[in-house]
């Protein structure tokens, strides 16, 4: 088998020759083929991020339509049917097509760089994941354009979404879109877990992992444990609708609340799947701009882990008014409140870091400050709704809408935007504008609070959520108008952000390797990083490698340049074990995604699609795994 190949080692080459050799080995082909066959984690992640932000913009436009309709009582801008589709689309799109994917995507881009490896584990699975995500998003939005969008809310409660009341294919499209995004998310979770556990730079023992990487690792485990619930839930919903099973039909021994249990067993952890990566970004940004390591590293890691474990014990707090036994509910009050402890630990540690640090007020830090101010409000309202009696008054009202926008936007989107400002130079090689950045921050911060704070009051004043209109004799008119107008300020802020981002890719100031003087490994390579990330694999012996040895990176040599090689190391101590190969580009993940898409969409209409559709899927998978005679296959 192993024909003798030129076994060139990096140590034999001078830096320019080394770079050229690696570039040749790790190259992504150009042209359409290259686009479809790419497996470079940076290319995939960039696509993922851009697509997710496109969905954010689309979801934001839907939000504006809702605000237009709600600005006045009994407005006739949208019909009730359209409104129901739009709020469902808004929620579904924001959660499944924007928030979760964008966080995963940031992980896909950054984790391999931060742990000092050359590509993510299972790069082809990564490519597949993106195509599946794209197909799921396209399915939803095409359905919307065809007036077939789901209209049952982002948690699609049965029986409304069941065979009897959910007419047409709308609920099926919702359920199948879920399947797409879950497959994509699960794939990324597996890649990240294995990358973090096995591909860390030599010497990066567990206590030297950057906090962002920890947060992605923990998040990935949450994905792995939570997503099967929703996959089963959405599948059984489709089965109920398509082949007449009775999971959710009380007349035949099924149960309506079973759906809610399954959905929220996933749905609650879901919000931490969005939130935990964001706190990882906060830690990364605070560390760099407070000019010192985050206070309480161990406490921070423990808080992440505690949150992820507790996340599975809270789901019933979304069901406080369904009439479950009171005693059980009190247990869920206690568990929901206890999750505020790890949240508090993190907030206090960040405050301590800022307190003892020397903060530099650049845009990323501004977003983080905005995050603390708003997220704490959202967290505190979360604690309020965790109380059963309190929740019976505000559940399914605008108070809850306010709570979750505070935690989603204040708690996750603010850090994300800060993260974009922070990592933009690394990803594109250019800086974003500081002026526009500050401008967008203030517009978003002010606009956000003006938009969402009054919703608390609306909720207490009795305004339920998911109503397409309200009657003129209700006292909600003024505040709703105010909210709608304020949302324009918010949108202006996002617009400035989008403009800045698009503009800066072309005309931004070129960025150096480490423009912020940050401590972690992603800043130890060029901006943007070359296809192989690091010419030589870094060796780590501290938590802040670039601060510990300013200007000089410790590396290892001895890797081959004619083969895509990276280092596999032990789980705990990160001792190098193997010079493992990383797969080359392949068109098969793309075909596998196409085949899966055809199968999944077909199965909305007939169960036979699963039977016949699995054949092309199997063929594509065989093509994917069938060994090719590349140097990577040597052993």
């Amino acid at each position, binding site marked *: 088998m192993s024909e003798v190949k030129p076994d060139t080692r990096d140590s034999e080459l001078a830096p320019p020759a080394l770079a050229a050799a690696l570039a040749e080995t790790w190259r992504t082909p150009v042209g359409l083929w290259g686009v479809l066959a790419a497996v470079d984690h940076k290319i995939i992640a960039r696509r993922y991020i851009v697509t997710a932000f496109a969905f954010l913009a689309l979801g934001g436009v839907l939000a504006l339509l809702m605000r237009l309709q709600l600005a006045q009582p009994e407005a006739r801008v949208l*019909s009730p049917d359209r409104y129901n589709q739009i709020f469902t689309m808004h929620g579904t799109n924001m959660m499944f097509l924007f928030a979760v994917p964008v966080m995963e995507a940031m992980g896909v881009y950054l984790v391999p760089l931060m742990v000092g490896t050359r590509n993510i584990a299972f790069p082809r699975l990564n490519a597949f994941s993106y195509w599946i995500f794209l197909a799921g998003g396209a399915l939803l939005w095409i359905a919307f354009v065809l007036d077939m969008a789901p209209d049952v809310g982002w948690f699609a409660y049965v029986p409304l979404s069941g065979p009897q009341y959910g007419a047409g294919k709308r609920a099926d499209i919702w359920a199948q879109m879920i399947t797409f995004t879950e497959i994509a998310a699960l794939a990324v979770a597996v890649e990240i877990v294995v990358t973090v556990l096995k591909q860390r730079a030599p010497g990066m023992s567990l206590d030297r992992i950057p906090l962002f990487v920890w947060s992605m690792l923990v998040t990935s485990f949450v994905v792995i444990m939570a997503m099967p619930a929703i996959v089963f839930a959405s599948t059984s919903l489709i089965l109920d609708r398509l082949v007449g099973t009775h999971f959710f039909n009380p007349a035949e021994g099924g149960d309506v609340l079973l759906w809610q249990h399954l959905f929220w067993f996933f749905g609650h952890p879901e919000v931490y799947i969005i939130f935990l990566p964001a706190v990882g970004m906060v830690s990364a940004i605070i560390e760099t701009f407070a*000019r010192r390591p985050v206070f309480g590293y161990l406490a921070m890691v423990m808080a992440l882990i505690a949150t992820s474990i507790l996340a599975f014990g809270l789901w019933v707090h979304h069901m406080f008014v369904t009439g479950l036994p009171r005693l059980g509910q009190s247990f869920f009050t206690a568990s929901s409140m206890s999750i505020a402890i790890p949240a*508090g630990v993190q907030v206090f540690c960040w405050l301590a870091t*800022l307190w003892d640090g020397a903060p530099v007020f650049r845009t990323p830090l501004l977003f983080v400050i905005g995050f603390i*101010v708003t997220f704490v409000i959202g967290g505190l309202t979360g604690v309020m709704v965790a109380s*059963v*009696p*309190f929740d019976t008054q505000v559940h399914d009202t605008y108070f809850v809408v306010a709570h979750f926008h505070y935690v989603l936007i204040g708690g996750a989107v603010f850090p994300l935007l800060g993260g974009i400002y922070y990592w933009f130079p690394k990803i594109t090689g250019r800086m974003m504008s500081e002026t526009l950045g500050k401008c967008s921050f203030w517009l978003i911060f002010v606009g956000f609070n003006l938009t969402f704070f009054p919703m608390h009051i609306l909720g207490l*004043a009795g305004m339920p959520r998911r109503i397409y209109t309200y009657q003129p004799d209700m006292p909600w008119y003024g505040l709703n108008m105010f909210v709608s107008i304020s949302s324009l300020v918010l949108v202006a802020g996002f617009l400035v952000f989008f403009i800045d981002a698009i503009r800066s890719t072309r005309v931004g100031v070129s960025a150096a390797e480490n423009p912020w003087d940050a401590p972690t490994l992603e800043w130890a390579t060029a901006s943007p990083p070359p296809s192989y990330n690091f010419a030589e694999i870094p060796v780590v012996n501290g938590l802040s490698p670039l601060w510990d040895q300013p200007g000089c990176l410790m590396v290892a040599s001895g890797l081959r340049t004619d083969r895509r090689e990276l280092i596999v190391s032990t789980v705990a101590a990160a001792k190098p074990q193997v010079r493992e190969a990383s797969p080359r580009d392949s068109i098969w993940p793309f075909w596998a995604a196409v085949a899966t898409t055809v199968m999944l969409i077909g199965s909305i209409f007939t169960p036979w699609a699963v039977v016949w559709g699995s054949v092309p899927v199997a063929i594509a998978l065989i093509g994917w795994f069938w060994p090719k005679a590349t140097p990577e296959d040597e052993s």
Partner: protein
Amino acid sequence: MRTRATRGVLLALLPSSVLAGCTGWQSAFDAQGASAISIKQLMVLMVVICSVVWALVIAVLIRALWRGREQVERSIGPDPVIERRTARVVVAAVTATVIVLAVFTVVSFFTTRALTLAGHDDLTIKVRGQQWWWGLEYLGPTPDERFETANEIHIPVGRNVRLQLEGIDVIHSLWVPGLAGKQDLIPGRRNELTLRAERPGAYRGQCSEFCGLQHAHMALLVIAEQQETFDQWMRSQRERATDPSDAEIAAGQQVFLSRPCAACHAIRGTSATGTNGPDLTHVGGRRYIAAGLLETTRGSLAAWISDPQTLKPGNNMPMVALSADELRSVSAYLASLK
């Protein structure tokens, strides 16, 4: 900086502003029912404490950022003495958090218990949530004391009234903020909710679980009145519908009974016994029609009957083509059913 301060003020004002001004007849803070009142106390407590917590966090944040301006150099190896001192402060803050949360949990627990300890009473009302109106059945001690009505619950002041909640089609949720927290009506399950109004009045409520097209227009009214008034109301509700008192009304009754109306609606004392729509025996005496959509007048009845699908798009009452005369007489008839 200014916005932060403004918002601080806003947050501090929240409890008081809600208490004072922005009340309505569907507000959790305009509490007139036993449960709503104890929940309100809990809410005020939690909102106040949380506002203080937030203010403290912000104060520390501002101080930390302000302090930092003096520092210039980055400190890679933070001073262990300072770190230990900081650690003590963090531990203290976490301890305080635990205490606050424990207080919240205990208070919530006792409030919950207070809500469920309410004694029982003989007045039980079966509430059926359906797309998009409320069917009501007052259960008396004997079968002939039962009666049907819709969308308007009358209760006596100062008594516990038990509502048996049933979801007929999809999930709905009964919420009358002025009196009590909400409770879902779930197909295949039976839930209960106890209402007790401390003061007479009309309390508006609204379905608060998304239930399809007209979830927005699924309101109900709870009218709490003194015992005598209530008894009188009960007696009159048990009666069959009043007989037509003039020719136009009699003609309206004929129209009602001969057109599809009777297939869906019941009017006790006539041959109309449909159950797909609200019982109309005393529809003229209710304040609103179509689940809070319109105030009951002859005109609104006519408007509704002539085109229910424009007024409440997607609702389950079809448009029945009637001539102008028929429309006039049938609305006169329904308006006469007090």
